[in-house]
């Protein structure tokens, strides 16, 4: 599970060759002072901070699953976001892997990062937030 990421500059890192993170795999890497988790979900890559805002558990060690979509009708179950819901290993708070948003409180977010592939290597960088 240990990986040494080469820090190109403090705003981006190289995680390593893309083949080393096959579908279904994840890796915890250090991004500056933060620990982050990098995931390959069906060929799409995601990166999210490895820290649950609740009690500070290593969020990225949790189960990657789907969830029942919030509905307006009792007894209605719509399973969605399979493989894109990260559930904290401790108290099971669900976070959207892509946006980092908590599924029970849309105002609560875990930091996510941009991923890209450059010449066969997987890179993670800070997301640019558009200025308002």
């Amino acid at each position, binding site marked *: 599970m240990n990986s040494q990421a080469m820090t190109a500059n403090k705003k981006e890192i190289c995680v390593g060759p893309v083949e080393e993170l096959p579908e279904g795999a*994840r890796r915890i890497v250090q991004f500056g002072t933060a620990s982050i988790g990098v995931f390959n979900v069906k060929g799409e890559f995601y990166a999210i901070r490895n820290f649950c805002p609740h*009690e500070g*558990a290593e969020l990225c*060690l*949790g189960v990657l699953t789907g969830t029942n979509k919030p509905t307006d009708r009792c007894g209605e179950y719509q399973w969605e976001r399979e493989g894109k819901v990260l559930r904290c290993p401790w108290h099971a708070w669900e976070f959207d892997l892509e946006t980092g948003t908590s599924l029970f409180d849309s105002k609560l977010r875990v930091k996510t990062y941009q991923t890209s592939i450059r010449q066969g290597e997987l890179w993670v960088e800070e997301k640019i937030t558009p200025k308002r």
Partner: protein
Amino acid sequence: MTNFTPAAKANQIVNPRLGYPIFDLEVHCIHEDPHQVSQYLPLRYRKRFDQGYLGLGMFNFDQRGGGFRTDGDVPGEQVFATTGELVRRQLLEPYEIEWAICTGQLYCLSILPDVDYATAVASAYNDWLINEFIPQDPSFLVAISISGSDPAQAVKEIERWADHPRVVEIMMPSASTMPLGNRFFHPIYEAAQACGLPIAAHTTNEGKGISPPPTPVGYPSRYLEFHSGLAANAMSQTASLVSEGVFAKFPDFKFLLMEGGVSWVLPLMWQLDADWKRLRQEMPLLKEKPSDYLKRQFFYTTQPIEEPKQTRDLIHTYEQIGGETQIMFSSDFPHWDFDDPFKILPGTTSAGLKKRILRDNARQLFGRKLRALEGS
């Protein structure tokens, strides 16, 4: 009883970040293989235990994602406390735990239909725990298990282990066919008092086996309803123990409610005290207010810690119920609702209260056995 008494030693924490190490009331150790336990069972019970038979019945209320943390060696897979090495690596060291009480996982004994089997399983489980698991780490302490369904046998089991240096507590299921204050169970409390060991009752098996449904109005539909509603049995058992005079009858007896929460006891104290003033003749054994007994003889573990919007409401409640002396930290490792001792009592908690909860109250409750272990 084994003659082998492995040396126990408090885990030495160098430069603890709080200035003191932490006492953990609850580690749910578990056997990896049923044979580890069944080897201690009489022959006639071995096969059924190995096959997983506990007589609890077909349905269960389960946390959909499994009941355990998933941040162990393989992310996403559940963590089981099967070895001392794992517990030390994932709990004792990172969380600076000086002593951890291994409470096992067997909280259904009182509600198994076959009382003799329940008694035998309790005994074999204690054999496994003390002979096989505890020796794996010098900082483990032991809570032995008993079944409430045969008090005479439970007393024998208590007396069997009471003098073992690492046995500090007796686990009794809170899931029961009668409230725990019922006279039927008093010989157990009397024996516990005589041995100087507290009884700890653990919730979560309500509604299983031959126990009544887990709520006073029948069966819940889902785990959320079930797990939240466990507060009902916590309240009922507390009211039972007080009202039936257990604390008055056995003034040195101490009772610990694990995983039952804490805050509900504040309004319960108000209600019990008011009722006692009016109904004293109906509770002739009580010489003091119910809350006086509770503040002296009833203990709580923090986990799962309640989370009001303002933590100061929690801390204030703790102070009102005698939390200064009665509340103790438990991690509940490795269950999903595990609490991190460094995170659960944030800044507004007085340093003194925090230390009492995280360490000192436990050291006081288990003082006699600790002195023997640490003095030697």
